[in-house]
């Protein structure tokens, strides 16, 4: 924040009190985690340096936009579109088809999930545009992008959650370990059993904590109490919830706090030991300590599980993920190894977003 303000000489003349407040809010969102504030500043500094060097050749105006970013922020539309006139994001916003930048190194690992030319419509409205990306096996892949850009939609497509919405129409294909996901012959239920999912909003079932965690096993017809109890404890420990609920496993899950409920959902998602974990902002309601624990869990699971995680927390993405995809308005903008995306993204727009200079 202070770094931002310091590096924007143009801020002083045009900024009103209102826009200053908005900026503060935007910066806070970008660095939601106060303990990570310094990291944010540091990564911003290095990233902007990298971005500057990387984007100089691309467009002459982008260097100026880097400098003006914090000042103009999310204010006046005209101002912003003028600034981005030549950028890919502006062209996306105008509805042009812009090819995504996918780093070659993402193909180094064997992909567990391949998304090919995937588009999706909610009724008339297209929410995903021609997305192609491989999700490497045994790695953590994070998806970032502004709100409403289709991250959740894409994630829900992986386990065909969108089948439940009557108006959804899709084009393109997805493959899990080479098997098509969107195929008539696919047993959707078996497919979903191979994946665990944590939703953006915690959705514990109105049953006891214990029953919530072992629900996937119950579905499978598991009756052995011993097994159930073991799985329950293991999953709850994994989700960093065990110590808080071990004495009240039989009380209703609805009596838990929002953050506890979210961790309960994580425990439920890992209870059946799925191949792929789909996490939609799993830490949005968690305090730093619980977040740390969940991140530890993700790190532990790396290798055995393939994890696809949506997050608005740049630091979290950079900390835990091996690969990062940046999406905007239903399109994939840039996808590559996290280190590259955060240090030397090929697009200045990516850089703008991860440094918080883009609203």
């Amino acid at each position, binding site marked *: 924040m202070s770094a931002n303000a310091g590096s924007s000489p143009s801020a002083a003349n045009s900024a009103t009190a209102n826009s200053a407040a908005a900026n503060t809010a935007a910066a806070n969102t970008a660095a939601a985690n106060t303990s990570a504030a310094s990291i944010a500043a540091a990564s911003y500094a290095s990233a902007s340096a990298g971005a500057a060097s990387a984007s100089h050749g691309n467009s002459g105006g982008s260097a100026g936009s880097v400098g003006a970013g914090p000042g103009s922020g999310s204010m006046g539309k005209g101002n912003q579109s003028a600034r981005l006139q030549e950028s890919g994001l502006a062209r996306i916003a105008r509805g042009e088809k812009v090819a995504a930048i996918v780093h070659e190194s993402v193909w180094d690992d064997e992909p567990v999930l391949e998304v090919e030319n995937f588009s999706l419509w909610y009724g008339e409205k297209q929410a995903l545009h021609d997305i192609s990306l491989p999700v490497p096996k045994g790695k953590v892949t994070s998806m970032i992008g502004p709100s409403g850009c289709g991250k959740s939609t894409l994630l829900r497509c992986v386990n065909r959650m969108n089948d439940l919405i009557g108006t959804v129409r899709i084009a393109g294909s997805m493959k899990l370990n080479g098997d098509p996901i969107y195929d*008539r*012959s696919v047993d959707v239920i078996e497919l979903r059993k191979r994946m*665990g999912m944590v939703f953006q909003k915690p959705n514990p*079932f*109105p*049953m*006891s904590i214990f029953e919530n965690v072992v*629900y996937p096993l119950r*579905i499978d017809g598991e009756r052995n109490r011993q097994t159930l109890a073991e799985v329950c404890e293991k999953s709850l420990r994994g989700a960093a919830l065990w110590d808080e609920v071990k004495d009240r496993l039989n009380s209703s899950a609805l009596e838990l706090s929002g953050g506890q409920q979210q961790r309960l959902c994580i425990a439920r998602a890992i209870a059946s030991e799925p191949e792929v974990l789909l996490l939609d902002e799993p830490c949005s309601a968690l305090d730093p300590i619980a977040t740390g624990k969940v991140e530890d869990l993700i790190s532990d699971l790396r290798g055995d599980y393939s994890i696809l995680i949506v997050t608005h927390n740049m630091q979290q993405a950079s900390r835990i993920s091996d690969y990062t995809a940046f999406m905007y308005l239903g399109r994939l903008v840039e996808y590559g190894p996290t280190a590259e995306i955060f240090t030397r993204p090929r697009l200045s727009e990516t850089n703008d977003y991860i440094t918080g200079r883009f609203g």
Partner: protein
Amino acid sequence: MSHSTAAANTPRERRRSRARPGVSLLASGEPMVWLTGGALTVAVSMIVGLMLLVLYNGSGTFWPVPITRVELPGGGRLMGEITRVERYRLTKPLVENLSGPVADAAAAKLAGRDSVDTERRLFRVGNFELTQTHFQWASDYEVAPGSEIRPEWAILAERVEWGRCVGELGQFVVRYRRVPSPDEEDLTSLVQWLETRLPAVPDAERPPLEAALARLRELVETRRRDNIREFLAQATSEASWRAVLEDGSEVALNEIQPQAAVVELRQVWTEPAAAWAKYLEAHPQVRERFQQRKHLERHEIGRVNNAIEEARLAVRGAEISTRSASLDKLEQLRQTRVQLDAQEAEWAALLARWEVLKREAKRPDERLRPLVDAAESLLRAARAEWEQARQEPLAAAAAMEAELAKLPEPLRDAGNRLLEVQQRGDEESSSIQRTIQSMNAENDRFELRLMAADGAAVAVPLSNIVRAYPANRLETAAAVGIYLERWWEYLTDEPREANSEGGVFPAIFGTVAMTLIMSLAVVPFGVLAALYLREYARGGPIVSVVRISINNLAGVPSIVFGVFGLGFFCYLVGAFLDGGAANAGLQTWPSYAWYGGLFVLVALALAAFVIGLRIASGERARSLMWSRVALGLWLVATALLVALLFGNPHFGGFFADRLPNPTLGKGGILWASLTLALLTLPVVIVSTEESLSAVPNSMREGSYACGAGKWQTIRRIVLPQAMPGIMTGMILAMARGAGEVAPLMLVGAVKLAPELPIDSSGPFVHPERSFMHLGFHIYDLGFQSQNSEAAKPMVFTTTLLLIALVATLNVAAVWLRGRLRKRFRLGQF
């Protein structure tokens, strides 16, 4: 906004300031509090008012009220409970219409004025067989001044027949009938027999026989007098004994002529306290016997009749299956056999009487000898006649037996069984009848005699008294006892006196049973339908139309459902089940067409199934066309199935043997329940749908994400959460169904059902029986009763009961809902 503009625009300023208080009042919500609170208050007070009215009127019905007696100007008297007091205006024209002493009294009351306020009271006078009325009004001017009293020993008796009896306690009477000695009876019969036989004896031989017969008469007479003397000896010398002679006259013991033919002794208590004490002592036993007798009549004889009816139905069934008739012949054969048996018994009795005579003649009474000597020839002649008389029936019986033997095997067996059962049944029921008669005779010995208001004596046999009490001598505890006793009778007993007295147990039972059967039918059905609509069906015009239709169903007048139930359930389905297609007025298919249809049906269903399977497994592209084809095939198959079912030429009905009496083809508790289930279906569907849609989608998604299938999700996640709503729907449906009357009148509710739908006979559950229903009972009491004044309080009481019953059912359902909720929260579903 600058100050100057505000100042320049003063009118607007003023308007704004005036508007302020109202705005702020609205903003703080005060008027809305009053409005909303007021609406609630009005609604609640109307409901509470109705409840209080029903409670007040309904709970007082059974309270024993004192009995008042007044004298009227004409010399008449009124005695009874005062049930109502009314004020009215006595006017000149009214008085001019009166005549006789009443007119004078009224004129005196008016005293020359144009009109005057006066009061009249309604006496429940009872004694319908004397007064031809149950109630009578008396205006205050009609009552002779100072004549109003409460007779200490005024008794109110509730009778099994004729309603209530009001009168002052007169006497309590116990009768003792003289029982002739067996010899006396035998010899009397013999004398009668001889009187018919002697004219046939040749004149020469007759005189000694006539003399002997005269001697025999004398002998019988002495026997009788001895017996009477012995009989009178049991009467102690108390003055309370009276004797009744053959001609019915009653004499005091000391006035009896030595020759008088006394048939009965009566012990009479005239002192009220003693009489009442005796009554209290005797009544319970009499009632006990009365109940036993009723039980015998109802259950034992019913059992015998059922056995006979069953055997008869077996014969009828055999007749249908063998296509031959036998029942008429069997009945003739039975009657012939009964006749023969009676003749045989008569002969045996005759012989026994002769034995008695011979015994008498052994004693040194030579005058009887000629009779004994002539016995053989007399008997021989009689025997010849007897055999003559038997010849024809014997031949007839033999012929019929031979015919019976020629019948097809199963019919013959069934016929023989029927004859056997009938014979056994006749014996059993005549022995039961004898028991009943002896009980009746025993009960008839006790009698309470009351003095009606006008002094007439009313004799009430104790067996006719349900309950009697001295209304003006009751203490509070006794009154409470009677009050509770009446409630108990009301809740557990059967109705009497065209439903205006007695209990309503059959109606309670019928209401509860019908409501439960209805719930059992409507809840699963409605929940499944709602599940389909909400969980499986994709939205679309068809689903909308279905949903709107269901909602409209709730607005259809209930009598329409009754008509539908009668036409569809009773006259179509019921008649079909009774006697097959022909009985229901349906066309049957020719046999070959039927089997062809069956084949087509199987083919269609198989095709639809295979297509459906392939669509489901994804082999066939999920095209709209194929699923439409499958749906169409299913529809055609279902229609064909129905047509095949109802056009089946090989189905002759389950109760063909009872035709033309319908079994299921008429109103009954099953059809009534199903009709009401249809009526309440929208309630269940709508509330279930609502509760299903109240389950958040995120729950379903969470479950699917765990790999659960559709049904697993519904069962484990959706249904448990929707269960309270479903139960609420059930409660609403039950309340609606239990209170419904109009459709029931068409499909099985009756004024008086002789048997409950569940009892100890046969298959125990009789869904085809008609039943009593509290709602219909209210209607019947209120609008169909002869004695509407007496029925009015019962209407309130029954209403109170119905409300209480519905409330109880609801409370039970709410309790169940609470339990389910608790269980589901722990995820044990």
